[in-house]
């Protein structure tokens, strides 16, 4: 997946504003960024949620057409409104 410059910097702006990303010093015009501890925690939580989703999907597929549980709203981590 290749992000356009506008999309990429829109995401960088939001992530930095939420303290999930921080810039590193650089003499170049292009500035490198580093994920913060808060960002790592959020990323870990998001990956774990995705992993549970994948596991549940694979279990359903391998276990045949069993009855699905009633849908419920998952407490997914959020960056807040765009």
């Amino acid at each position: 997946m290749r992000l356009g410059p506008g999309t990429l910097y829109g995401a960088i702006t939001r992530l930095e504003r939420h303290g999930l990303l921080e810039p590193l010093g650089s003499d170049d015009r292009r500035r490198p960024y580093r994920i913060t501890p808060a960002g790592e925690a959020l990323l870990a939580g998001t990956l774990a949620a995705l992993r549970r989703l994948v596991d549940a999907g694979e279990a359903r597929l391998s276990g045949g057409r069993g009855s699905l549980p009633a849908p419920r709203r998952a407490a997914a981590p959020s960056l807040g409104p765009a």
Partner: protein
Amino acid sequence: MKPRRSAERLLRCYPPRWRVRYGDELAALVEEELADRPRSIMVRVDVVRGGFVTRLRESGLTGDSVPAAERVRAGVLLVGAAWSLAVVAGAAVATYAERWAQAAPARARSAPAPAFYAVQVAAWCAVAAFAAGAVLVAPALWSRLRDARWRETRPHVAVAGASSLVTAGATVALVTWVHRLQPAIRDGAQSGDHVVGALWALLRVVTVAAFTVAGIAALRRVPLDSRLLRAAGLAVTVAASLCALLAGVVTWWASLAAASAPWFAASGGAGPSTASWSPSEHRSPSPRRSGSLEPRGPSPLRDGACRRCPPRWGGGAVSPAAGAGHGWWSSSPSAVEVAVGRLWPAYCW
């Protein structure tokens, strides 16, 4: 165009404060992208879209990056800008729709008439709410203009004032000039009329835009207090009225087209501009043919600057026969026209 220059132009889509922080690094990235793909439209579209979204977010219209009170201010400013746009569009529609009831066939009026009435009601609601909001914020605005921040707003106010003077001067000159023309020329027989009328309309649009910019610049510096929050409530009324107004105009237009399709889309019937017209004859041009619902086609010079005044106004004496022949007496003059006619006889002829 070189990638560097393209990147600099594209970056203008972003708000200045954002550019101070991210501008250089985004420019470097855009330059690299454009060097690899010089003809890429997607890169340009992506940067423009990103700039638009960032402007919305930084102004407080979307997201939560600014305090709630500032978001209220942004909403009020947005409604103010929409109001200015509605004033310009409304003037165009009002000119276009003038005497539509006399121009349209009788069978075609029943459905559009309620819609047109709703448009007028919505317009007056919007005017009342906007005026009330202006009264609310005027004291704070005035006190802010008098303090040190006046320097920041002064250029915008100066441009608005100068634009008003130029427009007023052009209006006086135009009316005086038109007053001396022969009726056939005055009523649109010469194509040059349209150029003059278009320039005059452009001046008015520029003046409205200048006042909008000055108003926004001043309101941005007004401290947030209860008055501004009350104005926000009125801004919601203005916004709702503008939505109703737009819906009414669309309904009026669509119902008029649907109820009288042959007349509406007729290819003939416009006739010469000096021909007489009577409401009972239905010899009016179709809107598509003439570009106007006016009985005898569009003539910007007739818009506002060229009203006929009945003898009782003290203006030019016009016989009823001449009035009927020109189709001007089919509707009553507005209160504003009466007042202008009394104050300024040259307005009439």
